[in-house]
C-alpha cells in the first residue's frame, strides 16, 4: 500500500520580485512502512515537501495522496482532522507546550482526539516508557534536556499510532549521542509498528539510518537511492 504519493508537485515562493521554486514538478511515492530521508541543502525544498505532505502547506499545483486519499484539495478543517488522526509530526525545535508536563504534552493530541482521560493517561505513560522517559512524566519542558524534550515530541507524534510520521530536522538541536538514540528509536518504531517515517535532514548520520535516501536540489528530486539494496 502506498503511504505517500506526490504527483507533479509545484510550489513557488516570492521574495520581493524574486520567485523561488521550492518544489519543482516533484513526483514521489513512498510505500507503507518506508523509512525515507529527504536530504537537501538549505532552501532545497525538503521542508516544503514535508509540510505539503503533512497538509501544513498547500502546493501551487500537483496532487498529494496520503494513505490513498487525495489531500491537496481538502479544507482546513479536513486537513486538521487528517493531521490529528493519521500523521505524527516531529519538529526541529522540539515544539512542546511549555506549561504542560511531559505526560500532558503527550496526552494533548489524544485530548483533541477525544480519548477518555484514563485511557490517555495510560497510553501516555506507556509511550513515555517506550521512548525511555520513565519517571519524567511530570517534568515540564524547561526542566528537561534537549534530547529528553525531543523524545517527548516523538512520544507525542507516535502515541496515537499514526501511519505516517514526518520529522523535520529532528536531530538538529541534539548532540551526537542523543541524535543516535533518537534515530534508533525511529528505526525501532518503524520495524515494530510498521510506521512510515519521512525525515527531512542534512545530517549524514541520520541519512545512514534510512532505508531510502532522496536527494533534492532547488526543489527537484535529483537522486533516489534504495540504501537497503546498496
Amino acid at each position, binding site marked *: 500500500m502506498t503511504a505517500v504519493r506526490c504527483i507533479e508537485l509545484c510550489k513557488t515562493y516570492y521574495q520581493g520580485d524574486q520567485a523561488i521554486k521550492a518544489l519543482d514538478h516533484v513526483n514521489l511515492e513512498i510505500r507503507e512502512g518506508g523509512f525515507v530521508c529527504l536530504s537537501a541543502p538549505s532552501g532545497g525544498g525538503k521542508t516544503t515537501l514535508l509540510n505539503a505532505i503533512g497538509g501544513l*502547506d498547500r502546493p501551487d499545483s500537483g496532487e498529494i495522496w496520503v494513505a490513498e486519499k487525495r489531500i491537496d484539495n481538502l479544507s482546513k*478543517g479536513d486537513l486538521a482532522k487528517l*493531521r490529528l488522526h493519521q500523521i505524527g509530526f516531529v519538529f526541529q525545535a522540539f515544539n512542546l*507546550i511549555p*506549561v*504542560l508536563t511531559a505526560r500532558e504534552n503527550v496526552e494533548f*493530541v489524544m485530548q483533541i482526539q477525544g480519548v477518555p482521560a484514563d485511557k490517555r493517561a495510560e497510553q501516555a505513560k506507556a509511550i513515555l516508557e517506550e521512548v525511555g522517559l520513565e519517571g519524567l512524566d511530570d517534568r515540564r519542558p524547561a526542566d528537561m534536556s534537549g534530547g529528553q524534550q525531543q523524545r517527548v515530541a516523538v512520544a507525542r507524534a507516535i502515541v496515537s499510532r499514526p501511519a505516517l510520521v514526518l520529522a523535520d530536522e529532528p536531530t538538529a538541536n541534539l548532540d551526537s549521542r542523543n541524535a543516535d538514540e533518537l534515530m534508533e528509536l525511529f528505526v525501532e518504531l518503524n520495524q515494530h509498528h510498521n510506521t512510515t517515517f519521512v525525515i527531512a535532514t542534512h545530517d549524514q548520520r541520520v541519512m545512514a539510518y534510512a532505508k531510502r535516501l532522496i536527494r533534492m536540489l532547488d526543489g527537484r528530486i535529483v537522486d533516489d537511492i534504495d540504501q537497503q539494496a546498496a
Partner: protein
Amino acid sequence: MLAWRNLWRNHRRTIIMISAVTIGVWAMIFMTALMRGMVNEMLRDGIQALPGHVQIHHPEFRDDPSVNNLIPATGTELKETFGGQGFEAWASRVNVPSVITSERESRGVTLVGIDPVAERPITFVANDIVEGRFLEDANDTGVVIGLKLADKLDTELGKRVVLMSQDPDNEIADRGFRVVGIFDSDPDAHEEAFVFAGKTTVQKLLRIGDRVTEVVFLGEDYRYVEPLFEQVNALAGADVIVERWYELDRLLGSMLKVMDGFVLVWVIVIFLALSFGLVNTLVMAVFERIREIGLMLALGMRPSNIVGQIIFESLLLLIIGLALGNALAWLTVVPLKGGIDISAVAEGMAMMGASSILYPDLQMNDIITANVVVLVLGFLASLSPAWRASRYQPVEAITKV
C-alpha cells in the same frame, strides 16, 4: 487546565488585569448601590409626600381636582370595602385647591383633610413637624403648614389663618384655623404646596358629608406595586379610577426608569475602559504564543478550538475578577447599610430630594446586570484576538522566533 496555566504564565500581567476587573466590578456595583440608595431615598420621600403606592379617585379628579369630583362611595362604604383586607396601610382624604390667607399674605395651596392616625404610616408630615404638633384626629380643628409657607404668609405657630375653597354648589366655603404645627419637608416644594387639616373638619367646611376625593394605599415595596394594584382594582368599583404611584407622579416614575438605564450605561462605560486592558492582555498573550498556537494547529487542533481556547482564557480571567469584585462590593456595601453621612453635601442633595444620610442599596438585579455585562462584553472583546490566533498559518507560526 491549559487555559488556567496559560493565564499564570505572566503572573504580573494576569494579576494586574484581574485587579483591574475586580476594581471595575467593585466600582460598578458599589457606585450603583450608592446611586440606588440615593434614588430610593428620593422616591421614598416622593411617595411618602402623598401618592402612597396606589390611589383611587373619581375618573375626572385628576383633570379637575375639585370638590365636584368626589369618589361616589361614602366614607362608610369605603371602610366596608377596604377595611380588613390586609393592606399595609390605607387612608381616605379630602384633597381640594384652596386659598390660605394670613393677616398679611395669601397663597394658593392644596388643602388636604386627613385622618392623622390612618395617615401616619403613609404621609411624611407626622415625622417632619419642626414646630408645634401634628394633627391629633380627624376632628382636629388646627392646621399644619410648611415652614416656607409660614415664612411667605409671614405667620407662625399659634396664629390663625383662613382657608377658603368652594363647596359642591360652588359656594364659597371658608373658615379660620389655628396653626398648630409647622413641617419641614424634603423636597422643599411641599412646604409651600400642601396644608393639612382634620378630615372631618374639612368635610364639614366643604359640606360633603363623609365623602372624600381620594383613597391612598401602601404596599410592602414601591418597586413591586402590581399585586397591590390588582387587589385594589378588584375591590374598587367601576366608577373610580385606580392608579399606581408612577402614574400619579410621572416624574417619580421616570426616575426609576432613568436609574435602571443609568445603571446599564454606567456599567458599560466602566467595562469599556476595562476592555482596552483586557484586549491588550489577550493580544499580548496571543502574540507571545504564536509558535505554540501554530504547533496546536499543526497537531490537528481546529481553528475553532483555538478561538474557544482564547475565549475560555479570557472568561476565566473575567470570572476570577468578577468573583473578587462581587465579594469586595458586598464587603464594602454591607457595613454601610446603616447609612453614610453625606451632610457635607446635604444641601445639594436636598435640592434633589435626597436626605443627608445615604443608604446604599445592593440589589440582585444590579449585581446580575454588572456580571452579565462584563461576561457578554468580555466575550465580545475576546473575539478579535481569538479570531486572529485562529487565522495563523501553522507553517508560518511555527517558525516564528
